[in-house]
């Protein structure tokens, strides 16, 4: 059975990393000491992933505050505002205020950061096969979480986030070895998003997937905080990407019906609940995998349904370890 385990999005900063940040932000340690600390934390995460048998992963996003920051800091035309709630979570982010036309800054550090993480991962995994993904917010999610003081309509704003920021960034990252990008689109399935905007979001994603594919980058489209069933037949327009489903966003298992109804072949089952400390039941994970197979999925990944920032690090590590054990047992 070809089911692979993945770490998506952020991994919680350990207390060590959080303290490192505090000390750096308050000027108590210099930049190079901070960099060294981040490097150490990233190596420790990769070692842990290797130990539990996960070789498709992100670098834990230790340098990121949320899925938008610091990306928006390196976008011309954007000012950064006060704190805004991240959907219905007790988690907040600094929102982009759009003051003029968007453009990715030439001075962004993401290429350097990705290269560094990739080198560290290769080193830890010692030549064995790995896939390091770069998480980025999707165009619809970026637009609907922006405060728009410039664009006449949301359609243009969504389109510019894609064409002026995300695509140039993916291109830059592809030059240093990026072969898979995670596009986070909670807004695509969020209950507050209108069908009309979902349609625009899907169209832009479709362009983005084509663009990424043309430069050799595979897209993982992660949807969470809502059921993918909301997209209905629109899902066909993006189904060449690996589609992430939030297993906890719908009545038990029903989100997976979308695999059967629209013939999805490449899926990431978000069976690890990133919003509760309760350990997942092995039978539920097994059921989710068998259902996906029954419904015709050919390429199946299992992982966390959303960024892991919402749970303590000690729980996140326990959940990943447990997920890995369950899936390995299943493979046997």
């Amino acid at each position, binding site marked *: 059975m070809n089911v692979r385990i993945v770490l998506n999005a952020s991994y*919680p*900063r350990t*207390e060590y990393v*959080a303290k490192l*940040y*505090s000390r750096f*932000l308050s000027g108590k340690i210099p930049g190079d000491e901070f960099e060294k600390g981040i490097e150490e934390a990233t190596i420790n995460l990769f070692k842990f992933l290797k130990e539990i048998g996960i070789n498709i992963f992100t670098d834990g996003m230790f340098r990121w*505050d*949320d899925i938008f*920051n610091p990306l928006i800091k390196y976008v011309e035309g954007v000012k950064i505002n*006060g*704190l805004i*709630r991240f959907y*219905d979570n*007790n*988690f*907040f*982010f*600094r929102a982009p205020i759009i003051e003029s036309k968007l453009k990715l800054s030439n001075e962004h550090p993401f290429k350097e950061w990705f290269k560094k993480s990739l080198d560290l991962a290769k080193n830890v995994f010692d030549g064995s096969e790995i896939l390091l993904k770069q998480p980025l917010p999707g165009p619809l999610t970026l637009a609907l979480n922006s405060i728009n003081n410039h664009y006449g309509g949301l359609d243009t704003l969504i389109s510019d986030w894609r064409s002026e920021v995300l695509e140039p960034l993916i291109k830059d990252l592809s030059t240093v070895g990026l072969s898979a990008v995670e596009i986070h689109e909670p807004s695509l399935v969020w209950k507050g998003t209108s069908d009309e905007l979902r349609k625009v979001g899907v169209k832009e994603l479709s362009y983005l997937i084509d663009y990424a594919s043309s430069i050799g980058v595979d897209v993982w489209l992660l949807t969470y905080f809502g059921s993918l069933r909301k997209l209905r037949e629109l899902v066909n327009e993006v189904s060449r990407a690996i589609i992430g489903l939030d297993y906890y966003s719908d009545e038990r298992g029903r989100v997976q019906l979308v695999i059967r109804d629209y013939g999805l072949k490449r899926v990431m089952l978000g069976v690890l609940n990133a919003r*509760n*400390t*309760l350990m997942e039941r092995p039978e539920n994970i097994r059921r989710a995998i068998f259902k996906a197979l029954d419904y015709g999925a050919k390429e199946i990944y299992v992982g966390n349904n959303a960024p892991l*920032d*919402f*749970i*303590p*690090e*000690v*729980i996140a590590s326990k959940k990943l370890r447990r997920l890995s054990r369950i899936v390995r047992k299943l493979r046997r």
Partner: protein
Amino acid sequence: MGWSKIELPILPTTVIGSYPRPKWLREFIKGYREGKYKEDQLREAFDDAVIAVVHDQEDAGVDIPSDGEQRRDEMVEYFAERIGGFVFYGPVRVWGNNYFRKPAVVSKLKYKGPIVINEYLFLRKVSKAKVVKVTITGPYTIADWSFNEYYRSKDELASELAKIINTEIKKLEEVGALYVQIDEPALTTHPDEMDWAIDVINEVVKGVNIKVGLHVCYSNYKVLKPYFDELKVSQLALEFANRGFRDLNILKNLNKELGFGVIDVHNRRIEDPRDVAKAIGKVLRYVEPECIYINPDCGLKLLPRNIARRKLEVMVQGAKYVRERLSRRGLTNTILRRSAECP
């Protein structure tokens, strides 16, 4: 003191609850965590800090002070630590590099004994004010900001918490407390849960015969408005300065007291008392003067202490300007109300 005798100046001034910890207390707590001090020494430091911050509030002219929540690190943690059935696995990010110890409910919740009774008794002892305020984090917010590993639903968890908080408020009543405020910053976060969330808050005040206010901040008040009549609390303490005093029209037909937020607690700029008075003037178009209390938007704890103190002085001065106008109409006093309706 009997209820019929409790008179307050018109537009009573109060705080929402938290107040900055003195720098020396923060250092003392750090030392305690490093093992340099004993528990009784920490208790003494907390007592001293309460005396200091109550003095700040009273000196600024605040009519109804709190103890500044000096003993509390965080509003959910503090209660979860004192209710049976919670565990703490570790810190969880709230934003940026800011974390809180989000509790998890792992077994049936249990009232282990008084949670804030001693806080109240000490505050009552050291304050010169006629009335003091005790704040309690509400059941909906505790449920929303916890991991639920035990109860079948969040609704069930919040109902259980409501019973526990109700027990605590009744005990506060027994020892003489007159005014409790339930803090529910999470209340409007999930609009589809509002129906049962309101029931849960009403469960908190069931059989309680003292004044209970409800504080809801940084929220969508349009979601709250349809429930104004249903809420069995005597006051709604709402934040308005942060939103530039927009949304005042939601107060139309409000049938209970308003705790009117006139000070922005997330901005270090000191307000002008004339602007405070102007804002009160605006709210008087919607709410009768005898049904208005004046307070900051929210707890002041994130501000430097000297700025918090100055902001309170400005708030009091702004209220005084309006009181002068009201006194010309013969309105000089109001009473401490328990009922869910005003006037």
